[in-house]
C-alpha cells in the first residue's frame, strides 16, 4: 500500500518509539499535521513559540535519554527554532527536527515563508537533510535518528518540502542502517586502555574529572564503580553533575569558574588527571597556559575532535565512555591491581581536607533578606534531593549547581554550552512529560523567565505541573556581577525595571502564584508548593539584589587563583583576562 510522505513521517516516528512531538503548525508542514490528526499514538504538544518546542524536546531528551522530536513549519518556524537547535548542539543532545519547506519547485524563488533551512542550521546541527524524493524519505528519517542518537549525539534536521509530504510511495522502513561515511568508534583501543590504567594506578595526586559525556553515554554506574575502586577524588563539570553522586565523600564538588575551591585546587595540583566525557571547555580550564601544570592526562571521549582540541593529553582513548571504563575496571580486577602510592594518596586526601575546610560555598546568612543560596538549600531539603531541576542561565544557574546536590544522572538539566536564557521553563515541561512521577523544579530569574513566559499557557494545556523557583533580584544578576567586578559598578542595562506582578501573571495563566519576601517563609512556601502535586506553582522569591556567585575564577585566572566570598570580593581581574568573556 502506498502512503503519503506525511503518513510516512508519522509511521517512521512510531517505528522510532516516539511518544511526544513538540511543535507548531504552519502552511508548509500542514500535510504532516493532518497525518498527526489521523492517529492517537504520538501526542503533539503545541508550544507557543518554536524556540520552546526545541527546548521542551531538549528537556525531554535530557531527562529520558531518548531523542527529542520537533515539528515546525518553514521560514520563521525554522528561524525561531535555531536558538534551541544550537542549544542542543552545544550540549550534544539527541534531537530530530522536522521542518516544513516550500514545494521543491518553488525552492530558490523567495517564496512565501521560504528560508534556506539547511543552510541556516548547518553550523549548529550534527547533520541535516533536504528530502527531494519521497522514495528517500523513510531512509532519510532512519538516518536522522541514527545520526542523532549514536556517537556523540546531536540535533539532526530533516527539511520536508510540501510536495514531498503530499507525494505517495510504498512505505518500507529500514530497521538497520549502515553508512560508509559514519561509524563512530565505540570500543577503546586495548593498548591505550592498558597504558591508562598503568598511569592511573601510579598516581600520587589524582583527580577524576567527569563531564556531560558520562551522562549522555549512560556511564555514571561505571564512573562511580571505577572511582570508588580507586578511592580517588572526583569532580563533575556543570554538564556532568549527577554522573557521580554529589553526596559521596569522594566528591569534591563542581569545578570551573564557579566550582568549589577544593575541586579547582585538585585540578591545578594533580599529577594524574582522568578526564571522562569532558571537553576542557574554557569555563572549566580557566587560563589554558596555567592549566594543570603537573598533570599527565588520560582523556576518554567518543569524539576524537574533543581530544587535544584545547589541552594536549598523554593517553587519549576514543570510544564510548561506558565501554572504556568497563574495560578499565575488568583489567584492574583481572590483575588484582590497586593504586600503589598509598602514602602519597593519604597525603593528597589530607591536603584536600584542608582545602575543603575553607568551605568555599559558605555565605553570609540573613534573617531579614532572602539569600538565593538559602532558597537553593531549602529546595534541596524540601525535595529530598529527588527532583529534576532545570535552570535558565545566570547566577541562579550557578547557585542551583552549587547547592542542589545531584546524586543521579539526568536530574540536572541546563544549557551549559550555549548558555541560553529561556531554556528552563520549556525544558521543565519536557522533563515532566518524560518523567511524570518525578517532581520538576525550574530554577530561574526574573530576566530569563521572561524570555519564554508564554509557555505557561502550554503547561496548563498539557497539564505539566512544575514548580517555578524564581530568584527575583531585580537585576540581570550575572551581568551585574561582572559589571561590579570588572566595570567599576557601572550597571549598564542590567537593571530590570517595570517587572510584572508574577503572582497575578501565574494566576492569569491558570496557575498558582506565590510571592515570598522573608527568609522565614522560604521553606514553608516550598513545602506548600510541592504539596500541590497537580499544579504549576510560580514561586517569586524576592532575593538580595546584589548577592554574588562565589567562589569565582576571574576570566584569565588559573585554578589556584580563585576569588572567595568576602575575602577577595573586590580584587580585580587580570588585564589579559578582560578580553576574555
Amino acid at each position, binding site marked *: 500500500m502506498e502512503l503519503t510522505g506525511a503518513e510516512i513521517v508519522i509511521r517512521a516516528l512510531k517505528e522510532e518509539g516516539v511518544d511526544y512531538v513538540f511543535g507548531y503548525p504552519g502552511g508548509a508542514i500542514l500535510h504532516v499535521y493532518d497525518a498527526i490528526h489521523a492517529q492517537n499514538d504520538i501526542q503533539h504538544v503545541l508550544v507557543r513559540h518554536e524556540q520552546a518546542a526545541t527546548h521542551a524536546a531538549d528537556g525531554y531528551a535530557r531527562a529520558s535519554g531518548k531523542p527529542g522530536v520537533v515539528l515546525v513549519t518553514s521560514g520563521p518556524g525554522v528561524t525561531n527554532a535555531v536558538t534551541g537547535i544550537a542549544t542542543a548542539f552545544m550540549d550534544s543532545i539527541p534531537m530530530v527536527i522536522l521542518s516544513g519547506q516550500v514545494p521543491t519547485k518553488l525552492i530558490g524563488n523567495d517564496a512565501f515563508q521560504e528560508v534556506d533551512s*539547511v543552510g541556516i542550521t*548547518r*553550523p549548529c546541527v*550534527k547533520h541535516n537533510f533536504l528530502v527531494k524524493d519521497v522514495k528517500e524519505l523513510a531512509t532519510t528519517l532512519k538516518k536522522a535518528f541514527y545520526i542523532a542518537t549514536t556517537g556523540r549525539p546531536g540535533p539532526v534536521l530533516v527539511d520536508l518540502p510540501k510536495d514531498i509530504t503530499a507525494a505517495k510511495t510504498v512505505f518500507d522502513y529500514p530497521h538497520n542502517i549502515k553508512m*560508509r561515511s559514519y561509524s563512530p568508534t565505540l570500543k577503546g583501543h586495548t593498548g591505550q586502555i592498558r597504558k591508562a590504567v598503568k598511569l592511573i594506578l601510579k598516581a600520587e595526586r589524582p583527580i577524576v574529572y567527569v563531564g556531560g559525556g558520562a551522562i549522555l553515554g549512560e556511564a555514571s554506574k561505571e564512573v562511580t564503580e571505577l572511582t570508588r575502586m580507586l578511592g580517588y577524588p572526583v569532580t563533575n563539570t556543570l554538564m556532568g553533575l549527577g554522573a557521580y553522586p554529589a553526596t559521596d565523600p569522594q566528591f569534591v564538588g563542581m569545578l570551573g569558574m564557579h566550582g568549589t575551591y577544593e575541586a579547582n585546587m585538585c585540578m591545578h595540583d594533580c599529577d594524574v588527571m582522568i578526564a571522562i566525557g569532558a571537553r576542557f571547555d574554557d569555563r572549566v580550564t580557566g587560563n589554558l597556559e596555567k592549566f594543570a601544570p603537573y598533570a599527565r592526562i588520560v582523556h576518554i571521549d567518543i569524539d576524537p575532535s574533543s581530544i587535544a582540541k584545547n589541552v594536549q593529553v598523554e593517553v587519549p582513548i576514543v570510544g564510548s565512555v561506558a565501554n572504556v571504563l568497563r574495560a578499565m575496571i575488568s583489567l584492574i580486577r583481572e590483575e588484582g591491581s590497586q593504586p600503589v602510592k598509598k602514602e602519597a594518596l593519604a597525603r593528597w586526601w589530607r591536603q584536600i581536607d584542608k582545602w575543603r575546610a575553607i568551605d568555599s560555598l559558605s555565605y553570609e546568612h540573613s534573617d531579614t533578606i532572602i539569600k538565593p543560596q538559602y532558597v537553593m538549600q531549602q529546595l534541596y531539603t524540601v525535595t529530598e534531593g529527588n527532583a529534576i531541576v532545570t535552570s535558565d542561565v545566570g547566577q541562579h544557574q550557578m547557585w542551583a549547581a552549587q547547592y542542589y546536590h545531584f546524586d543521579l544522572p539526568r536530574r540536572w538539566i541546563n544549557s551549559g554550552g550555549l548558555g541560553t536564557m529561556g531554556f528552563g521553563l520549556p525544558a521543565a515541561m519536557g522533563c515532566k512529560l518524560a518523567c511524570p512521577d518525578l517532581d520538576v523544579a525550574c530554577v530561574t530569574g526574573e530576566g530569563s523567565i521572561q524570555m519564554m513566559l508564554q509557555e505557561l499557557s502550554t503547561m496548563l494545556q498539557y497539564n505539566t505541573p512544575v514548580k517555578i523557583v524564581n530568584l527575583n533580584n531585580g537585576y540581570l544578576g550575572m551581568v551585574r556581577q561582572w559589571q561590579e567586578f570588572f566595570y567599576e559598578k557601572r550597571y549598564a542595562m542590567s537593571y530590570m525595571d517595570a517587572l510584572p506582578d508574577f503572582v497575578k501573571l501565574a494566576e492569569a495563566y491558570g496557575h498558582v502564584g506565590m510571592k515570598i519576601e522573608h527568609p522565614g517563609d522560604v521553606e514553608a512556601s516550598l513545602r506548600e508548593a510541592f504539596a500541590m502535586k497537580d499544579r504549576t506553582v510560580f514561586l517569586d522569591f524576592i532575593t538580595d539584589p546584589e548577592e554574588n556567585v562565589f567562589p569565582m575564577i576571574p576570566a584569565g585566572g588559573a585554578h589556584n587563583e580563585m576569588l572567595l566570598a568576602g575575602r577577595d570580593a573586590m580584587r580585580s581581574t587580570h588585564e589579559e583576562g578582560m578580553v576574555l568573556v
Partner: protein
Amino acid sequence: MRHIISILLENESGALSRVANLFSARGYNIETLCVAPTEDPSLSRMTLVTNGTPEIIEQIVKQLNKLIEVVKLVDLTEGVHIERELMLVKIRAVGELQRAEVMRLVDIFRGRIIDVTEVTYTVEITGTSEKLDGFMDAVGRDELLEVTRTGITGIARGVKALRT
C-alpha cells in the same frame, strides 16, 4: 606549514558547503580547493591546501572526519606524493619577436598553445604551483591578460590508494 588534504566525500549537494563552512566557522585557512566526481559517481574527490601548526592540522583532520559526508581522507604531505595544478593563461603576443619569445617559453615550460589570435596566445600548462608562478614571471606579469588556475590536486606515490 602547508598541508595538502585529499578527501573522498559523498557526491551530494551541500557536501562542499559543509567543508567550506567548517573552515570559515573555525577560522582555518583554505589556500586552494579543487573538487570533482571520481570514477565512482557517488563520490567526489576534494583536494584542499591549508596551513597551520601541527595542532591545528590535527583538528582540521578530525573535524573533517566528523562531517557525515566525508568518507575518507588523507594528508598527502605526510608521505611522498605528486601534486599538480592546471593553468590556462591568455598572453599578449604582438609582433614577431614577442610571439616567438612566448612560444619558446611555452616550450621550455612544457606548456601548449591552445588558442591563437593575431594579438594573443592562450596557453595550457600544468605543474606544481611554483612552476606555474615561474612561467608567469618568465613571460612577464604585464603581458598576462587573463589567468585561471584550478588549485592543487594530488596523489600519493606508490601502491597505496585512497579508496572506500
